[in-house]
């Protein structure tokens, strides 16, 4: 299926480019997930990456944070190629971004306070008292108070996300990555998390990259959106531009009649079913 690809688009915000992807390809065995992604993200911009399951959103995010390596092309954060073999070279870069994982990924054997203070202990020379104050401040920023001594297992899904967010901003990052921040949350808590994402972007001036397929949430928080389909960016624009895009509209409404995004090749099913006979 040939899908007309948009030209790589200049980011809407005016800040410097903090993430630059060029011709990024990623395969698992024979299966190519990303087929050449070109994408720039600028400082202060909130970019939402949308797309269905299995179309490469989370893979692209993992390449950006250096958790996986691209098979071809380049992913640069602050000008540093993330595709290097020696992870130690990426440590200075990794200290400049935070990640909120889909499952929150809180360290289960540590208290809430320890989850946040760990990064400060490991990456700064701050005094213990200062670290304790920063932990309280970060928790306050995400709307939590007096829960430093709780264990992650004692928290609700929404609270875990908030703690994960407090940990992500512990080192005052310049970029925050969000992997499905709304997964498993009810609409009220999701709206609160969205407000936090918007607030952190505005107050801290960070670039936010949000991977999601929660459409309401995406339009609420985005400055700019891209739609991934079969490992390619097939739409890129502001929320207003995206609403007018037929492919995005089909995706939003979950329609199977909305052009190439909903089209499905059903030929050959009988042969598959009967083992090629």
């Amino acid at each position, binding site marked *: 299926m040939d899908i007309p690809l948009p030209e790589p688009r200049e980011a809407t915000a005016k800040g410097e480019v903090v993430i630059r992807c060029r011709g990024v390809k990623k395969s698992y065995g024979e299966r190519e997930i990303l087929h050449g992604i070109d994408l720039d993200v600028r400082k202060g911009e909130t970019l939402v990456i949308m797309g269905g399951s299995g179309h490469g959103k989370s893979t692209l995010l993992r390449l950006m944070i250096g958790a996986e390596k691209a098979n071809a092309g380049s992913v640069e954060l602050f000008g540093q190629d993330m595709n290097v073999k020696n*992870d130690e070279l990426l440590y200075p870069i990794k200290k400049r971004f935070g990640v909120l994982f889909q*499952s929150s990924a809180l360290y289960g054997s540590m208290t809430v306070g320890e989850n946040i203070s760990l990064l400060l202990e490991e990456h700064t020379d701050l005094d213990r008292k200062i670290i304790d104050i920063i932990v309280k401040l970060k928790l306050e920023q995400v709307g939590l108070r007096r829960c430093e001594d709780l264990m992650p297992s004692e928290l609700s899904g929404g609270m875990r996300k908030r703690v994960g967010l407090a940990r992500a901003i512990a080192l005052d990052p310049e970029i925050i990555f969000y992997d499905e921040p709304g997964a498993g949350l009810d609409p009220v808590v999701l709206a609160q998390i969205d407000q936090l994402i918007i607030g952190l972007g505005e107050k801290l001036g960070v670039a936010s990259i949000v991977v999601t397929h929660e459409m309401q949430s995406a339009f609420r928080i985005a400055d700019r959106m891209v739609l991934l389909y079969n490992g390619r960016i097939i739409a890129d624009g502001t929320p207003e531009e995206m609403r007018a895009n037929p492919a995005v509209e089909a995706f939003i409404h979950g329609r199977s009649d909305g052009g190439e995004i909903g089209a499905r090749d059903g030929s050959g099913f009988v042969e598959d079913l009967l083992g090629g006979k």
Partner: protein
Amino acid sequence: MTDLLASVGRGGIAIGSFLLECAQLVRGFLYWTTIATFKGYPIRFHEAARQSVRVGVKSIPIVFLVNFFVGATLAFTVAEILNLFGATEYTAAVMGVGFWRELGPLLTGIIMAGYVGASLAAEIGTMKVGEELMALEASALDPVRFLAVPRLLAVLVMVPAATLFGIIFGIYGGYIVCVGVLGQNATMFWDQMIEPMDKVDIRLGMIKSVIFASIVGVTGLVQGLRVRGGAEGVGAATTNAVVYSIIFIIVADLLVTTFHYFS
């Protein structure tokens, strides 16, 4: 025949890739405990101490139970055979040499494979499934330095320590049987036990315990780190950690004993 060869080939590749991952973990362990400490990445000794309590102190009851009962059972068996030759008093000698050289390290190693190896694989595997390892990496914290080094240090210290206790408990089980049940003289038991033993027996037992500790620690950690999928993957890793550890311990035991015999 082709199927058999193919499955043997697949098994060989699986073992090969597992051993390669073990070698990578050992390399990482050596790097983070030596070179990296000069680069400003200190060893997390407080975490190693916390793990030592979990690995060592909490395993003492099971180490006691198994070694004590096997010691007592062995004493009955050996005494019965030696009685045929009128040499029952040498039971203590067999107990001493047997437990120092062989049974103490082997039994404790196998107990630790089940107790510690399985727990390491399950813990690290669950962390991997829950994206905690990725979260560490994304925060510029190496999982080997952060998780594997403290745990491996704890295992390397506490398994030999538990082995020492195991040997003492095993011999004590034999002592209870020989003196309390078979009516041997207590002083003679200790004299007979110590007489045939030399430093080689103690050294061999301790060398084995360090080797078995390495096997249990590295196997458990690697199985945890290579978990794929969800709960099913964690379950498989836990089983593999125990099975692989026991097999490697038995093979290593034979190799060390054979090497000692011919050296």
